């Protein structure tokens, strides 16, 4: 809903933005633009965090700096966020925010509701497409803020060649490298990966359940990955029979769908276009006579699904 970016200078800024915003919607957060990145030639990295879990947002992160300053990334210990401990990631993110004269960053927090809604559109939008759009949005945002980007490194989602082609068609002026394991190959992608991962963890920890106002919330959801028994148990325990899960859950994950099927009321959607006419029940049919459609006086009524009735 809100495509505005919020500027944050520290991790506690980030946490307060996250807990202030409605987490059914996407949230976008960024650093100030370092002056050096407006004039000097810059590199930019992109990575994501939280693609697989059935719970919580997926976060896209970018970080950028002038090519001449990239040695700072190694000094800070930027490596693949998955091989670093949580504490190490938090510490490095802290350092990144302190290097505001040199390093810039931005994240797009894609809410679980957005993910479910995209997947359950009539014309399905795949997770890869969501990812690509998020990456494109971040690059565009940084360009719009006047950063002199020359080279972009992206951790791939799907086949790298196609993805690279897609990005090049949108940003023909940039040199773009899309590759597998970019987070361990390019320190600028590692930095992006750390931003994304730290902020995803913060978003999960600070999740505000609108469904459970004023209650102590069960946050024992384990790893959040669908094959984790603790996560599965969490899903089973936190079901409303009508509405299903609280909005922290990605309804479109097959694990979530299965748990709903067995533990909540069945919901039928009028989804097949062809069937719609056949099955269509005009609201007025609730007031019909002897289950028979009454001969109408004019097509006006037929067209509008109206019948004349005197009997309830």
């Amino acid at each position, binding site marked *: 809903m809100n495509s505005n970016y919020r500027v944050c200078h520290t991790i506690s800024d980030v946490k307060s933005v996250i807990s202030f915003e*409605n987490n059914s919607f996407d949230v976008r957060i960024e650093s100030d633009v370092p002056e050096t990145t407006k004039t000097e030639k810059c590199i930019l990295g992109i990575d994501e965090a939280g693609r697989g879990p059935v719970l919580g947002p997926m976060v896209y992160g970018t970080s950028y700096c002038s090519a001449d300053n990239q040695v700072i990334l190694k000094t800070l210990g930027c490596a693949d966020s998955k091989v670093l401990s949580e504490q190490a990631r938090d510490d490095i993110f802290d350092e990144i925010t302190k290097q505001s004269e040199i390093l810039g960053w931005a994240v797009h927090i894609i809410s679980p509701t957005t993910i479910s*809604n995209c997947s*359950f559109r009539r014309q399905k939008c795949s997770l890869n497409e969501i990812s690509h759009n998020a990456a494109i949005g971040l690059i565009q945002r940084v360009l719009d803020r006047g950063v002199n980007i020359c080279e972009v490194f992206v951790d791939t989602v799907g086949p790298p060649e196609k993805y690279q082609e897609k990005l090049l068609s949108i940003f023909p002026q940039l040199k773009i490298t899309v590759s597998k394991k970019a987070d361990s190959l390019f320190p600028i992608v590692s930095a992006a990966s750390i931003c994304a991962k730290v902020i995803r963890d913060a978003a999960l920890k600070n999740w505000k359940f609108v469904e459970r106002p*004023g209650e102590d919330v069960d946050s024992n959801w384990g790893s959040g990955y669908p094959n984790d028994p603790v996560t599965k148990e969490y899903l089973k325990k936190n079901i409303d029979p*009508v509405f299903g899960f609280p909005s922290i859950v990605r309804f479109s994950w097959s694990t979530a769908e299965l748990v709903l099927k067995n533990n909540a*009321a069945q*919901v*039928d959607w009028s*989804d097949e276009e062809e069937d719609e006419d056949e099955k269509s029940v005009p609201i007025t049919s609730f007031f019909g*006579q002897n289950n028979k459609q009454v001969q109408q006086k004019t097509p006006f009524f037929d067209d509008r699904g109206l019948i004349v009735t005197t009997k309830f």
Partner: protein
Amino acid sequence: MRFVIKRPEHSQTEDSDASAVATDQQAVHLLPCKIHTRKLGGGRQTLKAPVDRYFCPYTKAATDDETALWHSSLRGKPLTGVKLSIPDGYVGLLCVGEDDDNHRNVVEDSTSAVESITGEVTQEVMYWNWDRIPTREDPLLSALDWVRVSEAIMTNDN
């Protein structure tokens, strides 16, 4: 298309944060889906629907704009809705339907499906479509044409 008419539960606990999103807690929601309240083995369940906590419609327009499009999410499905005011001189009645799974696909049977009319009156209805903007082509919205047409006929002295 199927309708489920639900009366929102009134909030038990006041949550100040909930007001961050513009919603209308008093609205009756017409949903583009059917929620089965009957258990598989038979026997009726009474399900309470905590609408105010789980169903949070929002709009990008002014909330008093009658043409405003509303958005919400149900079971992960994106919904688009409009607010319908019951025309002057008419009342909206809430009917409790019989949920008969054996006959649910037979249109004719739904005419005898009204179990009771609750007597509850509503002035406003939120009409929801699944990922499609409601238009005058929608059955309910077009049915309301009759209101204006009938008024025109009735007020015509000829």
